[in-house]
């Protein structure tokens, strides 16, 4: 029996490599007896004792991509009147004007809920998020810098991160006001500040608590929690929306 772990490692190492390294074993992943990643193993930590949030993560289904407020009652989203009217219009016309229809990026925080994986990497001075969807990246600076005065508003905004206990807290501003937070069309104005608290509960599970503070579109800050899971033994693939966008011409809405 003592030889089993060694044999398992050998088997994993010899497993055939397919295209895109889709079954490439994740280095250092804790394993169950059958060799599968142990999703409920304790949260790994970096040398400085902080949780190690690196890895490839994927939203659990479509729920929050369709409706970021899925866990709230409809009257719990504190819309400003114009934002409520816009949301109603978008629902009624079946999301005709969703920027994603045209292959424009999904912005912060919709990216957390997209049903393609994202990969978190940690470097000195920044946490980097690579998104399979659209093959784009987002830098979260941890070197103490602040948003430049001349920052051009963007889909992903300007993000800084810091640790609060075991939570990695990402604060984002500088968003461009064009973002739909979900396919239902919850709007986000250029005044928005988005706070994401990443908490790796165990080896295989992350909570991302997202607070929307956007006084232009909502009367008060509101918070939801998403729960992506780890994808071990795989890699991101390339995803090029513009390569095969057959939808744009056919999305007529109502």
């Amino acid at each position, binding site marked *: 029996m003592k030889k089993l772990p060694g044999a398992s490692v050998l088997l994993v190492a010899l497993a055939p*490599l*397919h*295209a*895109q*390294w889709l079954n*490439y074993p994740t*280095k250092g992943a804790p394993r169950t007896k059958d060799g599968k990643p142990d999703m409920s193993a304790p949260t790994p930590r970096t040398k400085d004792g902080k949780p190690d949030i690196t890895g490839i993560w994927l939203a659990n289904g479509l729920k929050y991509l369709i409706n970021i407020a899925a866990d709230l009652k409809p009257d719990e989203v504190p819309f400003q009147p114009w934002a409520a009217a816009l949301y109603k219009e978008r629902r009624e016309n079946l999301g005709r004007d969703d920027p994603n229809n*045209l*292959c*424009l*990026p999904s912005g912060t925080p919709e990216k957390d809920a997209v049903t393609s994986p994202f990969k978190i*990497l*940690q*470097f000195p001075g*920044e946490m*980097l998020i*690579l998104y399979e969807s659209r*093959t*784009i*990246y987002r*830098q979260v600076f941890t070197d103490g810098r602040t948003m*430049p005065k001349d920052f*051009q508003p*963007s*889909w*992903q905004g300007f993000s800084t991160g810091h640790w609060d206990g075991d939570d990695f807290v990402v604060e984002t501003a500088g968003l461009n006001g064009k973002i739909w937070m979900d396919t239902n069309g919850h709007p986000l104005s250029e005044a928005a500040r988005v706070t994401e608290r990443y908490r790796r509960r165990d080896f295989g599970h992350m909570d991302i608590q997202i607070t929307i503070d956007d006084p232009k579109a909502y009367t008060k800050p509101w918070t939801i929690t998403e729960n992506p899971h780890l994808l071990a033994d795989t*890699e*991101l*693939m*390339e995803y*090029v929306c*513009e*390569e095969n966008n057959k939808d744009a011409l056919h999305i007529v809405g109502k």
Partner: protein
Amino acid sequence: MRFSTTVILALSLAPVVALAQVRKPDLSGVWEPDGLQSMHTAASALLLHPEAAKGPDPDANCTLSGVPRLDLGPQPFKILQSPDEVVILYQAFTTFRQVFTDGRPLPEDPQPSWLGYSVGKWDGDTLVVDTVGFNDTTWLDNAGTPHSESLHVTERFHRRDKEHLDIQITIDDPKTFKHPFTVTQQASLAPSLELTEFICLENKK
């Protein structure tokens, strides 16, 4: 007995490994290409089918450009480096490449892609990046130099000094060129620069 041999072996190798890791050059930083580089001069005489018609520029469709076209400028790129992978962030298209330096081999039958599949290894002070698995749609440069799916790109990243990075780029594509050829792109450290979001579709004319 086997256990203790392994431990002894591990202990004896440990200082070498640590030293090797410490001594790798740090390529990280924001780099700005020294102008727009073309492959035309080196490539045109080597084309096996010079008569082949050049289609429209694939970048006009806001796909992901290609390799080594993204190295050739003019937009800046940023290198981030960890022991297991080097990431290159390109301002152009806000896209990225992962270069795995954890010893994994190149995939044997890769799905053709825009940016390919990259692994890297150190040759002295030079990071040697091998990339395969391209589609045949991308251009090698802005001049429209073509290639096939057999393309194998080797980029040798060498930080000449603190402020200068040389990228020696070798194109090996026996279905397109008579023999491999090499061009060198140079880039300068841009410490006061940070990449900005570039969404091709928003600028599509």
